[in-house]
């Protein structure tokens, strides 16, 4: 184990496993009292040895020492240098109990030190039988708690700080938040009352705030920092007893240790699949209910309704369990960025914001590679070397920001750099040279779309060939990966000012509200989140604007598209009234002419199998209550 490594993530595993060994130790000891077999003694030795090794790796010196002495004593007895008697068993049992207490306490904080008489008793038992002293115990210097090496003596002093926010304060919540932040910048905030959430909400009874802090500089530094905050009275700074630090304080709400088990991701996939199937089966049942005689229908409907509510709840819970913070992938990025930047001889400041935002595990998994690729691109082709940057009047260190934020129903992941930007004209030229576009089409392409030409295989504006990003391969893979999880990719750039790459992603996979419509004789689904309205209009409200049909809607005119034609069916005969669905697209809203509006349906979306997933414009498929499969359309891509 590397020295100084943060071991806190292993605490759960350590506790679980150490408890198992210690319980086995107890059982062996009790068995030994009944009948002494070499196997039992060996087993005793092995368990003590395992606990010693684990505790030492975790930097838990007191447990390791105790286990080591137990191991020594057992070893002595194993080699026949002494006798097992009741007093030895009592001694070892006491040691096991003490270790159990300490191991369990590890989950909550630094463990208590073992009673010295216990250690002394074990040493004495060995010495009495062998006449030799004990070998020393080796313990790894691992950082278990808050980055501080174990041992209370090395800890910075701790204080309890009482603050009063005057009644006249206009924003007591912000004031308290600022105080909390100021203290957090000085050292470590151990606790705060009221909780940080309550502070943010301004819920501070009597304006009184109590904080526990660990500050390297001591009380003087603390007072000095707080004196700089206006509108705040420092009532008291008192030392906190280091031996009984946070235990005496109620833990802040929401931070209580929760019971958890690890499950494989595939298991969650299975649960989701099953919950989805359950919803589909219930929908089927509901359809059948509609055909029941009236006398039975209400009873059945009530039952099915309840079943649906339960299945929905279960589905939601499973979805919730799949939500994972982006930090899972972003935590590794600073290191990767540093490595790439070093290899390229670039100075780059990298920051991540919003990594606590959660996404469905499946989306997250699909995101890791593309994100890394975009960051590599930013360093390889975006950030200039220090001299060029200075010449361009920019800070010598480049900056790359990864920002994550939530909008209504999406998560936006943005990578922004302040490098040289992308050359839109060069992209147009490259696309023409590759034969992907005619010069005319390339010229007419709006900038936002021309930038996406970088996603065509083989098109790149990179000035240099790099071993890291390749030659334009990559952005096409990024785009495909994002689209595979029903996301979209956006690029924007300013020459000399930098580039922004944004992934717009759905929060979750799976359940969608659909508007079912008929087009070309088929039933298809449109995601309700994209539907702005559905109207039926007489042909008189359809105008023409520069030759193309448009629909008057609200105060504007919307371009009309026939959905049947978009899907490649024959254009149906015009009807009166003609139903339209007004849909939001990436740019302006559009009116889709359909043959009928069939209603709304909650659908469990299934990904399309190959080769159907290659068809642009199909977002997925669902199975209706009637058992009929229905395609879900991605209209912006159909129009593209």
């Amino acid at each position: 184990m590397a020295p100084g490594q943060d071991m806190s993530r292993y605490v759960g595993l350590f506790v679980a496993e150490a408890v198992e060994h210690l319980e086995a130790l107890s059982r062996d000891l009790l068995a030994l009292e009944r009948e002494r077999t070499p196997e039992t003694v060996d087993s005793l030795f092995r368990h003590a040895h395992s606990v010693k090794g684990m505790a030492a790796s975790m930097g838990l010196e007191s447990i390791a020492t105790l286990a080591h002495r137990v191991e020594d004593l057992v070893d002595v007895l194993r080699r026949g240098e002494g006798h097992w008697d009741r007093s030895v068993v009592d001694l070892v049992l006491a040691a096991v109990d003490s270790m159990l207490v300490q191991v369990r306490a590890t989950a909550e904080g630094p463990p208590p030190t073992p009673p010295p008489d216990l250690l002394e008793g074990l040493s004495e038992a060995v010495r009495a039988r062998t006449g030799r002293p004990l070998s020393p115990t080796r313990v790894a210097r691992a950082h278990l708690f808050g980055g501080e090496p174990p041992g209370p003596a090395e800890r910075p002093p701790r204080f309890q700080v009482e603050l009063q926010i005057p009644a006249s304060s206009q924003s007591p919540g912000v004031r308290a938040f600022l105080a909390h932040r100021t203290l957090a910048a000085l050292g470590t905030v151990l606790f705060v009352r009221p909780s940080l959430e309550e502070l943010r909400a301004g819920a501070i009874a009597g304006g009184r705030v109590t904080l526990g802090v660990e500050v390297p500089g001591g009380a003087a530094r603390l007072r000095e920092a707080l004196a700089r905050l206006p509108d705040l009275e420092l009532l008291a700074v008192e030392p906190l007893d280091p031996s009984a630090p946070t235990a005496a304080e109620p833990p802040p709400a929401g931070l209580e240790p929760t019971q958890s088990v690890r499950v494989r991701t595939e298991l969650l996939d299975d649960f989701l699949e099953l919950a989805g199937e359950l919803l589909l089966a219930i929908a089927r049942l509901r359809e059948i209910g509609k055909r029941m005689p009236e006398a039975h229908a209400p009873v059945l409907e009530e039952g099915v309704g309840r079943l649906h509510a339960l299945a929905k709840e279960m589905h939601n819970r499973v979805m919730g369990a799949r939500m994972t913070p982006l930090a899972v992938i972003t935590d590794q990025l600073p290191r990767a960025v540093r490595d790439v930047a070093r290899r390229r001889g670039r100075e780059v400041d990298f920051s991540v914001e919003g990594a606590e935002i959660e996404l469905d595990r499946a989306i997250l998994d699909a995101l890791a590679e593309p994100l890394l690729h975009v960051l590599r691109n930013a360093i390889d082709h975006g950030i200039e070397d220090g001299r060029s940057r200075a010449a361009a009047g920019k800070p010598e260190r480049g900056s790359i920001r990864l920002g994550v934020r939530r909008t209504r129903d999406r998560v936006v992941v943005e990578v922004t750099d302040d490098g040289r930007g992308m050359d839109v004209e060069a992209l147009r030229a490259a696309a023409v040279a590759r034969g992907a576009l005619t010069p005319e089409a390339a010229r007419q392409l709006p900038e936002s779309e021309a930038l996406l030409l970088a996603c065509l295989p083989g098109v790149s504006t990179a000035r240099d060939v790099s071993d890291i990003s390749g030659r334009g391969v990559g952005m096409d893979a990024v785009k495909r990966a994002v689209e595979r999880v029903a996301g979209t990719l956006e690029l924007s750039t300013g020459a000399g000012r930098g580039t922004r790459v944004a992934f717009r992603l759905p929060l979750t996979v799976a359940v969608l509200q659909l508007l079912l419509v008929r087009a070309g004789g088929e039933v298809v689904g449109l995601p309700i989140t994209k539907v702005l309205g559905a109207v039926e209009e007489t042909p008189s409200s359809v105008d023409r604007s520069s030759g193309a049909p448009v629909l008057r809607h609200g105060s504007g005119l919307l371009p009309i598209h026939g959905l049947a034609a978009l899907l490649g069916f024959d254009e149906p005969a015009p009807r009166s009234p003609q139903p339209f669905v007004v849909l939001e697209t990436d740019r302006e809203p559009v009116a889709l002419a359909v043959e009928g509006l069939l209603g709304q349906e909650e659908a469990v979306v299934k990904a399309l199998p190959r080769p159907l997933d290659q068809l642009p414009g199909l977002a997925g498929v669902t199975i209706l209550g009637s058992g009929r499969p229905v395609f879900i359309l991605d209209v912006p891509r159909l129009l593209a």
Partner: protein
Amino acid sequence: MPKRVLIVDDAVFMRNMLRDILGAAGYLVVGEATHGIEAVQRHRELKPDLTTMDIVMPYKNGIEATREIVRTDPSAVIVICSALGQEALVMEAIEAGAADFVVKPFRPEDVLGVLRKVLGDERSP
């Protein structure tokens, strides 16, 4: 030497009022900016001792501007001037690196009190 202040606010009224309050108290208002982008530029040029920053502004808001200024100059002292009811935004600005805040509508003594405190100067400038 009087402390040099940059005022950032999109409202002329607010800028004038702040300029008057600060000028009367002996601060030197070295510049003004009307939106976040300008704020970042002017801060870089002027290197003021203190910047007052509105939050809701066109082009680039005060939170973004604060973040950018503090990133390039970690010693920048930025005081947020916000309207009542914008607590969440103010906290965001503090997280972005603002040193303190005052709430509009403000009284001159409140503004000056905060400025003196954050500049570590209990007396008049």
